[in-house]
Structures are given as C-alpha cells and as structure tokens.
C-alpha cells in the first residue's frame, strides 16, 4: 500500500503501524511522488495526506479516480475537521477520512475495513 505525507513523523508512523500489521508499505513525501508511485504500481490502498505542497492529496485523489485504476480505495488524512474538507474529499471520491490528531489504532482499523470491503 501507498502512504503519502510531507510530514516525516506521520509518514514513518503510519508506515510502521501498517507494516507491523503485515502490509507491504511504500511511503513517499509528496503528491507528485505519490502519483508516480501509483502509476508504476497501483497499490491495494492509498493513504494520502490532504495538505502537501505541490500536488495536494485531493489532486492525487482526483488523478487516481481518473486513471486506469480508479477503484483503488483511498483514505484521506486531514488536519482540519472542517466539513468542507471532508465534503470535498468525498465529492472527489475518497473512501474514508481520518482527522489529525488521529489514533493510529483507529487508522489501522479503517484500513483493514476498507481492504475487507474490496475483497
């Protein structure tokens, strides 16, 4: 699975949590790298931070939904619990949302749920 966040703390944290749970994780620091990683090898799930310089999480999400593998589940990470961010995310096609500060256990739980749904 793919994790994209410009914040190294969160990136490492999520990568660690998911890999401890047994998943193969690729972590990238920005939107463009996320998109390129997605293009070269579509992951089972993508976890994208909304706020990244350059291509934001929403930009990447939009590109994913318009790509050849549009059904990849995407979880958005956002620093704001604002309705508009959440609305925008769902409008573009996010599958789930986690607000920062977040509980890593809950994140894992949601990822598991999303994966189970695609099976």
């Amino acid at each position, binding site marked *: 699975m793919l994790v994209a966040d410009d*914040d190294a703390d969160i990136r490492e944290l999520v990568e660690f949590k998911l890999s401890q749970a047994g998943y193969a994780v690729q972590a990238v620091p920005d939107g463009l790298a996320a998109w390129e990683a997605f293009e070269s090898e579509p992951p089972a799930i993508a976890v994208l931070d909304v706020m990244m310089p350059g291509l934001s999480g929403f930009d990447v999400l939009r590109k994913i939904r318009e790509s050849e593998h549009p059904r990849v589940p995407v979880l958005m990470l956002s620093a704001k619990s604002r309705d508009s961010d959440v609305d925008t995310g769902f409008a573009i096609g996010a599958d789930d949302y986690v607000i920062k*500060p977040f509980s890593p256990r809950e994140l894992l739980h949601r990822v598991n749920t999303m994966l189970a749904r695609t099976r």
Partner: protein
Amino acid sequence: MISWSSILAATLGVLLVCVALAGVVAAIRIRRHSREARRSRLMAPFRPHLVAVSAGEDPGGDSRRVLADVAGPARRALAESVSGMLGKVRGLPAEQLVEVLASHGALGRAVEDLGHRSPVRRAQAAQLLGLSRDPAAVDPLVGALGDHAAEVRASAAYALGLIGDPRAAGPLLHAVGAPGGGLPAGLAADALLSMGVGISDSLVHGLVDPDPRTRTVTAHLCGAGSFTRALPLLRDLVALDPDLTVRETCATALGRIGRAEDAEVLTRHTQVEHPQPLRRVCAAALGELGDPSAVPTLAALTHDPDPRLAELAASTLVRLGPQGRAALAAGGALRPVRSAMTMARLQGVLP
C-alpha cells in the same frame, strides 16, 4: 569633490561586505543542513522507539523505557520530537508520550520556562503544557496570555484550548482585544470552542467588551456553540453596535441559534435604511432561522432594487416551507425569483 582615498575605502568596504554576505547566505544554508543532520544523528538511535510508541506498538513498554533513559543533549532533541508527535496523535500513544516527557521532568520545567528569557522557549513551554493536557498548567498559561511576545500569547491560547478548562475563557476573550497586539481572533475562537458549555458566563461578558474584536469572537462563538443565554444581547448588538463586523456576526449567530422572537430584529435590519452588507447578512440569517413570520418581509424584498438581496430573500423563501413557496409563486416572473428557483432546482432542493 570627493577624495580618492575615502571613496577607495568605501568601495573596498562595500565589496568586502558583499563577499561576506554571499558567504553568510551559504553559511545559513550550511548551518540549516548541519542542524538538521545533527538533530537526526542525535535522534537516530531513538527514532524507531519514538515511532513505535507513537504508533501504539509498544505493549511491553520497552521503547518507553529506552526513551525515558535518554540523557544529555539528545534529551532536548527528543523533547522537541515528542512535542511534534503529540500534535499529531491522540489516544493511548499520546498519553504514553506525555509520560515519557514527565519522566524527564520536562513538564515541571515547562512551567518554569514560561518565564524564560527567550520567547521561543516560552512559546515552546506553553505548547508543551498544552499538549500534555495538564490541568495544573491553566493558571500559568493564563498568565502567559499577557506576554509581550505575540507568539507566546498565541501558544498559550492554543494550549488553553487543548486543556479545555473553561476557567480560562474570560481571560482568553479579554486577551483577544487587549491593547498592545491582542490575540489572533480565530485561534482564540478555536480554543474557546473546545472548552464546552462552561464558558457561557464569559461569553455574556465578552459581548460587552470595549474591543470590537472580542465582541466579534464572542458573537461567533455564541452561534457556533449554541449559547442561547446571550440571545437578548445579540439582538441588541445587531441594532446598536458601532462596528459593522460585530453586527454582521451577531446577525449570523442569531440565524444559527435564534428562535421565533429573533426573526423580528433580523427582518427589521433588512430594511433599506441599513447598510447593504448588513441587509444581505440578515436576509441570509432569516433563512437559517427558518421562522415563517419573516415571509411577508422577504416577499417584499424580492422586489428590492438590489438583485443580490432580492435573490437571497427568494432563496430563503424557498427554504421556508409551503408558506415561503406560496409567496414565491406570487412573484414568479421576477428575475431574482426565477434565478433562486433555478438554483434551487439545480441543487435538488426543488424538484
């Protein structure tokens, strides 16, 4: 005329400074890189443990023990890293991280640091106290709201919001409009919202604060947090406050939390003798309020020469149920009405 020697000296001086500055630019970059490198080096052995604890993957407490044992210069770097993490995670990992800090004595030091010489340290101390959610820190933090460095005040306000003790609400509101800089209003509003219903008394005081910024924040909070005790004051302020922003904020708040009797003041302020921005805000607020007593005034407004106001009134009527729509039908040919109906259809509000 200027002497040769003086201009030679001046030129050499200038060119020397230029070279020095070019060197400074490079030095700044090098220093930044080396600082980052140094921090990474210091943290390198502990980073995996930090990540493990933050991820909640430290059931046996091994990583926590390692972190607690950190000493020397690495401790400061660790404290910063832990602070960073605390802003990003919550739940059990956050509690465990706070324990690590407590074991270093960092929290006790933080209270002292609130009086430190350097404003950076004071601000960091405030942030740490907030992230640790220590209720005993409220009083010192309230004191820090009066710090003369803006970033310290902001940190203190943010920290008070994290702790969430409503005792701090009054001082926080007052600090927004305090002379000599004040507090960022949005930050204060965020902090206050997390303090729950206990701030109700402070809000009533805030509405009569001499500074318009404080009144604006208070009015906004009343609406955002459903503080209905303030309704009579809000009504008065819509009519009488000298500051237009305050009046608009009160009107919006009335729309959000008001009851039927609040429609009257809103409808009154849609009339032509009031400032145009206020009229529009009141028309929109009537829609939020949803009281049918406003229908006749709104219907009259659809004929107003201000097209935006007319359309706002029409959109509001759409949302006011069968009475509203009946009134609209009467003015069906009017352009603002047609526009509002088209929008409503596009949005799926009307079939």
